[in-house]
C-alpha cells in the first residue's frame, strides 16, 4: 500500500494528473455552456472523436499546425451544428440525437482513416503535427511547483484561460445572460423576445469548439497520433463533471480534476500488480461513484431545505 502513496505524491503524478485532466476540463467547459442554455449535448463523445481525427488530417495535408487546428475546429462545428439542427429544428430527442452522432463519428473516423492511411487502427503512418509544449519563464525555475506546473502543452494552458473566458462569457456578457435565460426558462425568455433556438445554436457551437479542442488534445498533444475510439468515454465523463459541478465553471473544473485523478491513478497503477482490467475500469467506476455521491448529497440538502 505505501508504494501507491509514494507514486501519488510524486512530481510525476501531479504532472500527469494535469495532463489527463486537460481534455476533460476543455470538454466539460463546453458542456457547461450547452447545459446553461438548456441542452444536454450527448454527442460530445462523437464531436471529440471527429475533431481528433480531422485535426490530425488537417495538419498532415496542410503541413502545419494551423491547418490542423482550423480543420479540427471546423469539423467539430459541423458535427455540433448537425446535432443542433436535428435536436432544435427537427425536434429529435437529445439522447437519440447524441447517440446517433456518436455512432456516426465512430464509423466515419475509421472509414476516413482507412481511406487516407490505408489502416484502421491508428494514424501512425502519416506525419501529423502536435501542439507545442510551453515552459513558463519564471515558474519553471521554482523547484517542485515548476516541475509540476510548467512544461505542459499549449492546450493545457489554453484550458485554464478558457475557464475564465467561459465564466466571463456566461456571467458578464449579454450573450451569456441570454444563454442563461434561455436555459432557465425558455418560455419566459421567448416572451421578452430572445430567439431561443438561435441562442441554443450559438451555445451548441461554442460547446462544439471546446469539444473540438478537447478532441484535438488527445490526438495532437496527449498522443501524437489518432487511434480509433481514442476518446474512450471522455465525452461522457465530461458530461458527468458538468453535472457534478452544477454547470458552474469553477465547480466543473474541480469535478473534472476529481475524475481525472482516477484516470491518472489508472496510469500509474499499471506498474503495480493489480489486474490491468481493474485499473482500466477505474475512471468509469469512479465516475459512477462520483455522480452517485454528489446526487445523494444533493438529495439530502434538498430535504433539509424543505423541512
Amino acid at each position, binding site marked *: 500500500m505505501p508504494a501507491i502513496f509514494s507514486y501519488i505524491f510524486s512530481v510525476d503524478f501531479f504532472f500527469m494528473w494535469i495532463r489527463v485532466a486537460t481534455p476533460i476540463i476543455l470538454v466539460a467547459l463546453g458542456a457547461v455552456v450547452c447545459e446553461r442554455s438548456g441542452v444536454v449535448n450527448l454527442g460530445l463523445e462523437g464531436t471529440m472523436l471527429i475533431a481528433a481525427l480531422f485535426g490530425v488530417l488537417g495538419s498532415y495535408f496542410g503541413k502545419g499546425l494551423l491547418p490542423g487546428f482550423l480543420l479540427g475546429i471546423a469539423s467539430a462545428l459541423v458535427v455540433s451544428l448537425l446535432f443542433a439542427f*436535428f435536436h432544435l429544428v427537427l425536434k*429529435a430527442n437529445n*439522447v437519440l*440525437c447524441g447517440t446517433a452522432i456518436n455512432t456516426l463519428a465512430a464509423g466515419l473516423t475509421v472509414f476516413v482513416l482507412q481511406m487516407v492511411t490505408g489502416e484502421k487502427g491508428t494514424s501512425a503512418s502519416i506525419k501529423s503535427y502536435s501542439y507545442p509544449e510551453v515552459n513558463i519563464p519564471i515558474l519553471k525555475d521554482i523547484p517542485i511547483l515548476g516541475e509540476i506546473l510548467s512544461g505542459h502543452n499549449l492546450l493545457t494552458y489554453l484550458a485554464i484561460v478558457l475557464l475564465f473566458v467561459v465564466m466571463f462569457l456566461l456571467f458578464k456578457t449579454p450573450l451569456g445572460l441570454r444563454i442563461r435565460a434561455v436555459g432557465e426558462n425558455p418560455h419566459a425568455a421567448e416572451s421578452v423576445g430572445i430567439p431561443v433556438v438561435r441562442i441554443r445554436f450559438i451555445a451548441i457551437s461554442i460547446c462544439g469548439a471546446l469539444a473540438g479542442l478537447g478532441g484535438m488534445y488527445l490526438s495532437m498533444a496527449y498522443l501524437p497520433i489518432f487511434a480509433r475510439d481514442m476518446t474512450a468515454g471522455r465525452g461522457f465523463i465530461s458530461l458527468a463533471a458538468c453535472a457534478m459541478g452544477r454547470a458552474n465553471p469553477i465547480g466543473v473544473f474541480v469535478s473534472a480534476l476529481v475524475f481525472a485523478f482516477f484516470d491518472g491513478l489508472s496510469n500509474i497503477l499499471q506498474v503495480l500488480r493489480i489486474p490491468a482490467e481493474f485499473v482500466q*475500469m477505474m475512471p468509469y467506476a469512479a465516475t459512477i461513484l462520483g455522480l452517485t455521491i454528489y446526487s445523494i448529497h444533493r*438529495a439530502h440538502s434538498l430535504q433539509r431545505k424543505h423541512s
Partner: protein
Amino acid sequence: MNEKRINLLVDLARVGIIISITLALVFLIVFLASQEPFVAIYSFFIGPFTSIRRIGNIVEAGAPLMFTALAVIIIFRSGLFSMISEGAFFIGITGAMIAAIAWRLPFPLHPFGAILFGGFCGAVAALIPALLRMKWSVSEVVTSIMLNYVIQFLSIYLVNYHFREISSSSLASLLLEPTAKLPVIFPGTRIHVGILIALAACIVLYLFLYRTALGYSIRVVGDNQTFARYSGINAAKTMLFAQIIAGFIAGIGGASELLGMYTRFKWTSSPGYGWTGIVVALLAKRNPLLVPIAALFIGYMNVGADIMARSSDVSREVVDIIQGVMMLLIAAEALLGGFRQRLIVSAAKLEDSLKSPEIKLKQEKGV
C-alpha cells in the same frame, strides 16, 4: 381520411424518405471512396443473397439485434434513457460462458440454465443505473454508459484471470462444454435455436406490453408520469421492473449468441449490439412485432458491408455511418410534421364541409 390513415401515410412517406436518403448516402460514399464502385455496390446490395450460407448470415446477424432492440424498446417505453442494453448483453455472454465452462449438466438443461444465468446477470446489470436513478435521481444516461465500460473490463478480467485458455496467444476462454451449445436448425448455415428464442421473445414481449396490466402501466409511465401517478400506478416500481425485464432479455440475447455461434469467449471489447439495437428499436417504431423485420434489415446491411469490405476497397465502417444517419433521421420527430399537419387540417375541413348545416349549428351552440 381519418387520423389513423393520415399517420400511416406520413409514416410511410417518412420511411420512404429515410430509405432513399440512406441509399443515396451509400452510393455517394462508395462512389467517392472506391476505385471500383460497381463491384462494391453489387457486393453490398446483392452479395448477401448469393448463397445459402450468406442468407444464413443475415439471420445470424439479426438474432442478437432482436434481443437488444427488445431491451431498448422496454427501457425507452418506460420513460428511461438507460443505455445498459450493451452492457447487459455483454455480461449475459460472460454469465453464459461461466455456466457453460464450469457447470456439468446434460444437454437440454445445460444451455437452458446457462441462458437463464446470462439473463439474470443482464437483469442485475440493468438494475444498477435504474436504482441509482430511482433513489437519488442520478442521470441514468451517463451511469449506464459508464457501467457498460465497467462491465466490459470486468468480463475481460474474468476471462483473462479465471477462464483463460493458457495455450492460446490471443485472449480466448477455455472451450465451452459441448453439452451447453445451442443446436443449429438449418444445416449449411449457422442459424441456431437462439433465433427461435428471439422470435418467441418478440411475441411474448408484444403480448406483455399490450395485453397485460403491467405492460400497460409501463406504457403509461413512459408516456405520462403525472397521469400514471394520478391513476395510482407506482411509477418507480414499474420503471424498475421494466429495467429488470429489459436486462434479462439483453442477457439471454448475449447468452444465446455465445452458445449458438461460438465455441469460446473471444471478445476483446464490447461488440456494440446494444447500440445497434437502438437503431433497430427506432426502425421498428418501438413495436416488438416489427422488431424481427427491422433486425433482419440491419443484419442484411451489416452482412452486405462485410462482403463489400472483403471484395472491394470500401471498409465495413460504412454501415456505422449509415446507422448513425438513419438514427438521426428516424429520431427527427418533426420530419414531415408540417405535411402531417396540413393533411389533418384539410381532412378536418373536408369533414366539416360534409356535415349538414343543422348538425353544424347544433355543434356551434354546444348542444
